[in-house]
């Protein structure tokens, strides 16, 4: 309940700050970006500036929670388009995060070792 309340509050604050940010420079706001024009032509659908702004807020918080230096978060998100931000928001914990190939080799080795000791296989030849 409390979390839901905080979430609503955050959304409201974000919306207000976005509107506030847009006010002083309507000239910038009126240009429809290339990325958003492309999103209109694709199945994924149109990404509005508000959707992208909310996605950015959401991602900033998740990145800090996942151990990224808060001072770095802005710079890291800067290389992503609005569509990419929207695709990433809310899915950061489930999307592939390539780490290493070494762990799986370890597991296979353990399974083989277990089979060897139980006598199911005999691939580790005894050194004479």
């Amino acid at each position, binding site marked *: 309940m409390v979390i839901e309340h905080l979430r609503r509050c955050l959304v409201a604050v974000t919306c207000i700050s976005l509107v506030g940010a847009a006010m002083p420079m309507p*000239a910038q706001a*009126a240009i429809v970006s290339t990325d958003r024009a492309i999103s209109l032509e694709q199945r994924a659908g149109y990404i509005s500036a508000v959707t992208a702004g909310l996605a950015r807020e959401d991602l900033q918080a998740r990145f800090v929670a996942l151990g990224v230096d808060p001072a770095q978060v802005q710079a890291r998100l800067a*290389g992503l388009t609005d569509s990419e931000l929207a695709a990433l928001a809310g899915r950061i914990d489930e999307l592939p995060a390539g780490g290493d190939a070494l762990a799986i080799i370890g597991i296979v080795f353990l399974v083989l070792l277990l089979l060897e000791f139980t006598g199911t296989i005999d691939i580790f030849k005894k050194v004479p």
Partner: protein
Amino acid sequence: MIRDLRAPRTRGARARSGRALASLLLPWMAACSTVAPLDASLPGDAPRRIELTATPFFPQEDHQCGPAALATVLAASGVPVVPADLVAGSYLPGREGSLQAELVAAARRHGRLAYVLPGDPGSLVAELAAGRPLLVLQNLGVDAYPRWHYAVLVGLDAGRDEVILRSGRRQREVMSWARFDDSWRRGGRWAVVLLEPGALPENPEPLRFLEAIAGLEAAGRLGDAAASYAAAAARWPEHALAQLGLGNNAYARGDLAAAVASYQRGVALAPGNAVLHNNLAQALLDAGCPRQAEAEARTAALLAAGTPLEGDVRDTLEAIEAGPRQEGRCAVEAGGSATGQPLSSRDDLEARAADR
């Protein structure tokens, strides 16, 4: 010691243990059995054997195959980096790995356009043949227990049905095509080529390429993006969105005359595109031409009615209505009417400006 305590094995026991092993591993291998050979998957005229031996190699640290693989393709494309330079910008400690989007963003920050290839073997071989190694995502586990891994594809040999990778701590990992394709399929057939600004991939798709340029722009590389938009406009002269990209890029760089000229070329190609009319209206307003701007914005409003763009166009119209009405310093209207005399090219625009 343990072995000495066991009874000697018989041939039957070995056969049984072989079957036991097979039954254990078969579910893992089942998906491999259906993969067509590499030779049959490649276009007829594609080279059958390539290896980009000059591709650098950076053995990965724990969990950091992302920065290592990215450094490999960046260095191969001429950007002098080592994996340590990329960790702070692309490694996510809480996930013990790197997200695809973050590797792409990091490449853009280093001035390279990251083009995500369509996931077919023909695209892979075409880029390799052009001398460009590819960043790929593999799932080395199974769908239920994924082990995500980034590697760099540097070669293939259709005769031996193999691919060659820079992977983890192996400088030259040779993997059967079936095994690679299986792990690549389970990673979503994701392969990325890094391009210098202005360069095109081998078989570019317009929207895919324009999307990649927009990413370069998001990373603040406006000049690099301009070179790539120019390449896109030259490759697809009939594509209105390439003109939109050029126009938006010029607008962001503060070059209003170039922005207006590009938007107008776009409008000529796609008169029904509300985005082009809207952005043209905004650029004209900024250039001190509110009457022309208003005409374009009204066209945009008609086209945008009932679409998600309605709000954007309303903002543009409101900005025009709030501003001064007279054409005090309009640099792009020369004898044009209030409805906006269409300009056919940038030369036309400059000629009219010179006439005044």
